[in-house]
């Protein structure tokens, strides 16, 4: 249903411990936050893209598809930063060199951060990341709810799409007013079906001994210390290079 999810379950790193990718992407985001953007961002973008495409084997086309929507947001949002608004003398818009610098900085940082997000999202099933939250002290009830939400999303999504198809087949979206009405009916129906599903799931799980907790076996992915070390070295090298370039550029 979601292209991102499909890759997350089927990429070259599928059987590796999610902590490794979390370190790579999270470390990338961290040094991006701490070090000078103009030299760090291009390096992060480069490293993450290579890791995603050459490492995890995600097709370039799909990586670009991932970036497309947020980049669209960036292209419409960033120019606003380059424009200044003068309120003293009526309302006057003007190009601002300082604003343009900010816009460039934001664009670079966003692209680099996006590449980190892409690496993580395209290579790691959401549920494996959620399972890590338990270790961070998130209550198990919350984690269980998150895992259930993940499962139910696909179910409800399909119902929503099918429901819209059914309404479209009966001209439910022929005018604006009818579209609104159809959508309202769809949402109300989906909500009721969602609540029904919760009740039926309760019966189904009761048959399997459900007493409140949703305990399941966790997948066994061994954490590879050599790989963690290599990721650490890579991030360190990126940091050093970024700092060196920054000093060199003055």
């Amino acid at each position: 249903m979601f292209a991102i999810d499909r890759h997350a379950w089927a990429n070259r790193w599928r059987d590796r411990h999610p902590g490794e990718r979390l370190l790579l992407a999270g470390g990338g985001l961290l040094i991006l936050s701490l070090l000078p953007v103009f030299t760090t961002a291009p390096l992060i973008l480069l490293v993450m893209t290579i890791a995603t495409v050459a490492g995890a084997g995600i097709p370039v086309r799909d990586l670009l598809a991932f970036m497309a929507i947020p980049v669209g947001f960036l292209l419409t949002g960033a120019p606003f930063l380059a424009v200044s608004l003068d309120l003293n003398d009526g309302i006057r818009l003007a190009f601002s060199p300082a604003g343009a610098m900010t816009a460039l900085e934001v664009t670079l940082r966003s692209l680099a951060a996006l590449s980190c997000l892409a690496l993580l999202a395209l290579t790691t099933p959401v549920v494996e990341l959620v399972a890590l939250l338990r270790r961070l002290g998130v209550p198990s009830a919350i984690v269980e709810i998150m895992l259930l939400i993940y499962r139910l999303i696909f179910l409800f999504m399909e119902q929503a799409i099918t429901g819209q198809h059914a309404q479209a087949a009966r001209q439910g979206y022929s005018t604006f007013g009818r579209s609104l009405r159809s959508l309202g009916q769809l949402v109300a129906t989906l909500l009721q079906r969602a609540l029904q599903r919760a009740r039926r799931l309760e019966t189904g799980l009761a048959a399997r001994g459900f007493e409140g907790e949703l305990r399941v076996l966790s997948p066994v992915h061994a954490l590879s210390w050599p790989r963690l070390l290599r990721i650490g070295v890579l991030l360190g090298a990126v940091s050093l290079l970024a700092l060196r370039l920054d000093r060199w550029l003055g």
Partner: protein
Amino acid sequence: MSDPILLAEGLEYAYPDAVMALQGLNLRVQPGRRLALLGANGSGKTTLLLHLNGTLRPARGQVRLDGQILGYDRAARLAWRSRVGLVLQDPEDQLFSATVAQDVSFGPLNQGLSDAEARTRVDEALASLRIAHLAGRPTHALSFGQKKRVAIAGILAMRPAVVILDEPTAGLDPHGVAHLLGALRHLQDSGTTLVFSTHDVDLAYAWADDIAILGAGRVLRQGTAVEALADSNLLGSAHLRTPTILALATALRDSGDLEWSDAQPPRTQGELVELIRQRSVHARN
């Protein structure tokens, strides 16, 4: 052979998660006939149906309605759907209103008909499916079989020339199936073209005029019901099987017990039993 009312040419379609659903599919729907799309789970039946009423747009290929290539702008889709109605498999997916009459009026009102006209259409559609007595009932209190019929009525009320049904008999008990097929036959008698998908080979053999066998996103064979089901190897490769009545009739012919022509094999339990009875009467005389 008359001109097809619907024609699918070289349809290709992949879902957003890259699952290829249709891979160069060709299909012709003859006006006024019952066409079964017979295929195993995952063979692309539902995806094809969604193309036939313009819900999904093929990556390659095209659909023709009355010979015209169909467009996908809003106006074209609206006109298309007034001619081609689609009933989905699960009635829960298509009933949105509190009462039966309200729900059935959804399509006609969306077509821009007046309240009075819509009311006439609702009465007509409910009557033709013999569920006029359900009009005032709340939809959520209906039985599964009733919901199925109400969902069909919702499409009929738009008076489409072609009605497409996804697995219309799925989940119905023998009584419910007989009831539904009776209503559909009545519909065909009034000139409506019927297309339905199923994985039930016995149903397709007993009930369809024409059959298209689907496998892996293609139509593997299309012809009259008898022609399409003749090749048991093809059926096996499509994860299907020979219909029970056809298999037994063939065994009885092979054993010399029965005679029937390839053009008119027995297609229902009733026909086969009748054939057996006639033969024994002959034998006795």
